[in-house]
């Protein structure tokens, strides 16, 4: 996920020097339009690979959580920020992915994660059907109903989900190497997140992205401009669920246990918060939003821990208040989210010595 940030950084600088180039041809659809940008991107991907050598297990664990959350958020972002369809059921898709992966663990882990994504995508397609008829709040309520239905199934379908006790997983294994630490599992996570991020970014800037955005902005005129309603909406649901399913599968391998409380309604809300805080409209938004939602509570936890156990109870409650307030503050102060904040900083930097 950090490579997004790096890419944005490199883009800023390449654009600062080569703005005119981007104005002519299809180059601006490339991931990194300039040689400088390509270098930075390659460097960054390299750095991602080396991270486990530099960082200890706990930071790697938090980073893994962030990367997985970013993947789920990107999926939701395609649906909400892209097609403008609200979903309150993202956690349910994570759950479908996680439970599926729990049946194909150990040496089969990569297959399990993929299968989780595919099964979630299938269910997502079905959940997408009502979106062809209903909109806005009503659609949100339909996805909410789906979320609660999913929890009911997770709790009661003992043979598949292990009920309330859930299921435990053996460590993922690649060619006989057990990935039993967050640092080792990181490579499995990268193997899924990096390609899916590239793919998502590509989709948003090509035909699918245009069709989704057009539906979000103006359904009537999108149809008149030639956008087919049914495949466009369903593909957004399908893809969003696929991303969540893969994220869920990875999460199962990270936690090594899957229980229903990982996929409660509150988690769906958290994912929506990531998209909103990050700022709907770009891939970077999903990453920044995920980082915010995962890291801020983590930081607040550390802070609470540092103050000593005596205050822990009171401060834990306060933690939620602070977190909620921060999200509200974002919605009010910067409706474009972290991406908006970022682009302001960027514009400031670009014109830094001479503000005009």
């Amino acid at each position, binding site marked *: 996920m950090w490579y997004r940030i790096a890419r944005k950084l490199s883009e800023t600088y390449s654009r600062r020097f080569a703005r005119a180039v981007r*104005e*002519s*041809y*299809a180059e601006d*659809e490339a991931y990194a339009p300039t040689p400088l940008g390509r270098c930075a991107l390659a460097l960054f991907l390299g750095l991602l690979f080396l991270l486990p050598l530099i960082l200890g297990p706990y930071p790697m664990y938090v980073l893994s959580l962030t990367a997985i959350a970013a993947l789920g958020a990107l999926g939701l972002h395609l649906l909400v920020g892209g097609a403008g369809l609200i979903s309150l059921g993202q956690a349910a898709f994570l759950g479908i992915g996680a439970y599926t992966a729990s049946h194909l663990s150990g040496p089969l882990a990569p297959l399990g994660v993929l299968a989780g994504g595919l099964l979630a995508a299938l269910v997502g397609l079905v959940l997408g059907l009502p979106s062809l008829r209903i909109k806005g709040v009503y659609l949100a309520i339909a996805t909410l109903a789906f979320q609660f239905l999913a929890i009911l199934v997770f709790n009661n379908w003992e043979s598949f989900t292990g009920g309330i006790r859930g299921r435990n997983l053996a460590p993922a294994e690649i060619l006989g190497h057990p990935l039993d630490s967050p640092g080792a599992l990181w490579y499995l996570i990268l193997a899924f997140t990096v390609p899916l991020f590239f793919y998502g970014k*590509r*989709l948003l800037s*090509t*035909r*699918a992205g*245009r*069709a989704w*955005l*057009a539906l*979000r*902005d*103006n359904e*009537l*005129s*999108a*149809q*008149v*401009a*030639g*956008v*087919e*309603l049914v*495949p*466009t909406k369903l*593909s957004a649901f399908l*893809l969003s669920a696929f991303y969540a399913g893969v994220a869920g599968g990875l999460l199962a391998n990270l936690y090594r246990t899957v229980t229903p409380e990982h996929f409660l309604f509150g988690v769906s809300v958290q994912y929506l918060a990531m998209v909103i805080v990050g700022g709907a*409209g770009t891939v970077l938004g999903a990453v920044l939003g995920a980082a915010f939602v995962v890291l801020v509570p983590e930081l607040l936890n550390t802070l609470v821990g540092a103050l000593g156990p005596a205050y822990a109870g009171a401060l834990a409650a306060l933690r939620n208040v602070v977190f909620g307030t921060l999200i509200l503050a974002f919605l009010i102060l910067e409706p474009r989210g972290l991406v908006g904040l970022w682009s302001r900083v960027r514009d400031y930097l670009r014109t830094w010595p001479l503000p005009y």
Partner: protein
Amino acid sequence: MGLAPILEVRDLHLRFKGVAALSGVGFTVEPGSFFAIIGPNGAGKTSLLNVLSGLYRPQSGEVRFLGRDLLPLPPPRRTRLGLGRTFQNLELFRGMTVLENVKLGAERAGPYPLLWPRADQEARVRARAEEVLEYLDLAPYRHVPAGLLPYGLQKRVEVARALAGSPRLLLLDEPMAGLAVEERQDLARYLQDARREWGVTLLWVEHDLRAVMELSERVLVLSYGQVLYHGDPEGARRDPRVQDAYLGGGA
């Protein structure tokens, strides 16, 4: 005029509860012509375009475009056949850039699977979009979100989006309304050029009678959902019923 008409409308009836928006409207449009529809407020002009582009379903009547029956087809299919459209009240994708708006229009001719991005198709769409942007002098605004442009430019972007799909027939709903005199002249020139160079047939709804008389070759006058007149612009000016409708309508 030996050519087969590009659009044939026969005996259209469209009712909303009590209101008869169209009653027995029929006319034909020759390929390559500049066809105007005029009429007082509420005459049913927009309703007629909505029937043509598939947003309203008429109770009865027939619409043939390039010899094909249009009425059973949903709007995107009609667009793919070569029917372009702009709206009376702007219906742009406001959050998308001008370029993205026009690219979406340009895609009409060669869509490919949604979830399988193809570089060659994207390059083609981009090239077409650039061509149209250049043509309508919109190139400097390509990366601006469409919703942020001034009204006149937004209208032009709508025309660009429709033209990018290389339509055979372009329906324009009051493209001149709300524009300054200069902008009107520019738009008229763009439309004339598009007609000459790309062979687009133009069907436009307009309130500005002067512009209609100057530019159009054929005129259809609607009033209360009925055809008052169908013929050349000179005849419309002299027709007593048309004069009545306009004086009565206060225009």
